[in-house]
């Protein structure tokens, strides 16, 4: 899961209430809503490496 960093508190609380305290997810800087498609692609490229590391367990 990836969300903007403004929603960390809610994301952490949601994980806890769903029985997964400490659930790990990635964030991208807030805001996202007003980005152009090109800027969204830049964000995706910036986080892609972290996504791969998290999925493969190579993130320490």
């Amino acid at each position: 899961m990836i969300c903007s960093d403004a929603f960390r508190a809610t994301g952490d609380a949601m994980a806890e209430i769903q029985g997964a305290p400490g659930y790990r997810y990635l964030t991208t800087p807030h805001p996202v809503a007003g980005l152009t498609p090109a800027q969204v692609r830049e964000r995706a490229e910036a986080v892609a490496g972290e996504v791969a590391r998290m999925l493969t367990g190579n993130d320490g």
Partner: protein
Amino acid sequence: MASEPDPDVAREAIEYCYEQGWTDGLPVVPVSQALLDQFLAQTGRSPDEVLWRMEHLGRECTVQTAAINAAMAGCLPEYFPIVLAAWDAVMRDRAAKGGGWQSTSGPAPLIVINGPIRGELGINSTGGNFAAGFRPNATIPRALGLMLRNAFGVVPHVFDQTTQGIPGRWAICFGENEEESPWEPLATEIGLEPGTNAVSCTLTRTYEFVDNRHTQNPEHLLNDFADTISRTGVMIFRAQSAGIVFCPEHAQMLADAGFSKPDVKDWLVEHCGRIEADLRRAGKDGVAEGGFGGRSASDEERVPGDTFTPFLPSRASVPIVVAGARNAAISMVFRVFGEWSNSSVEIEPAPVAAASSLDGRS
């Protein structure tokens, strides 16, 4: 004769409620089993009946939990059927079912009450209908706020993600001024029998006054409303919903000029909106036609600058109520958060056995 209540004991109980995290910041009424029983006696519904379950939070609110929170909010037991009807009414709103309570918009329920119960319980429908000073008007919406907090755990900074919210978020409840309205009551317009005690409720985003004591021309007046309704700042999607709480003077002026309530709605549907150049200037010309979609400004001009986009799709997106005093031409435009259900919920009368808590008080 009963002795005077002990203020220190009362305060101790109130502070206990604060310590439990049960309050919205203001003191609540500590609830005994006896008081709870008085509330539950006002409804034929089972205390265990689930009013609503928020699946994603794994939490629910029963009739009993609602009663506790209504009592804590300062309601009289007689208000409880209205609290239940208000909850049922707002949950017909698609946005309320879909996570609207946790929205960054921090929407406020707008609760409108029709029928003779207004007079019986002292629900204000005239001067100061948005202002403080009347127990049912103040405590019924607060009960909904406490239900959200205490039953569902939707508290600020965690599951309540409100960015700024609306002033008086849990304080917007009034009767329709049926006596001075030239039009049929809201609940009757929607389909209930005249004289029915009913609640209509929707989530709202903001309230903006229109002060027009300047003209006797109904089209001038309607243009003033259209200007407020059509501002670009409120626009998220091209289609939106805005209602008007008309003061009696504005409503009567329009009615005297031959405007029925549907006529007013039709006029607003036709005239509220903006031309593309205005939307482009505000960076909102990329907004999709309906539902979720593009929000960012377009690089290219999508249509000619003088193309008009109407904001209100239909009569159903323009709820109209009459309330307030007949002493100045000041009305209120409100923004529906999502999509109003366009329905009213009948207030179930209390079972015959329920004694009024007002009896024997005088």
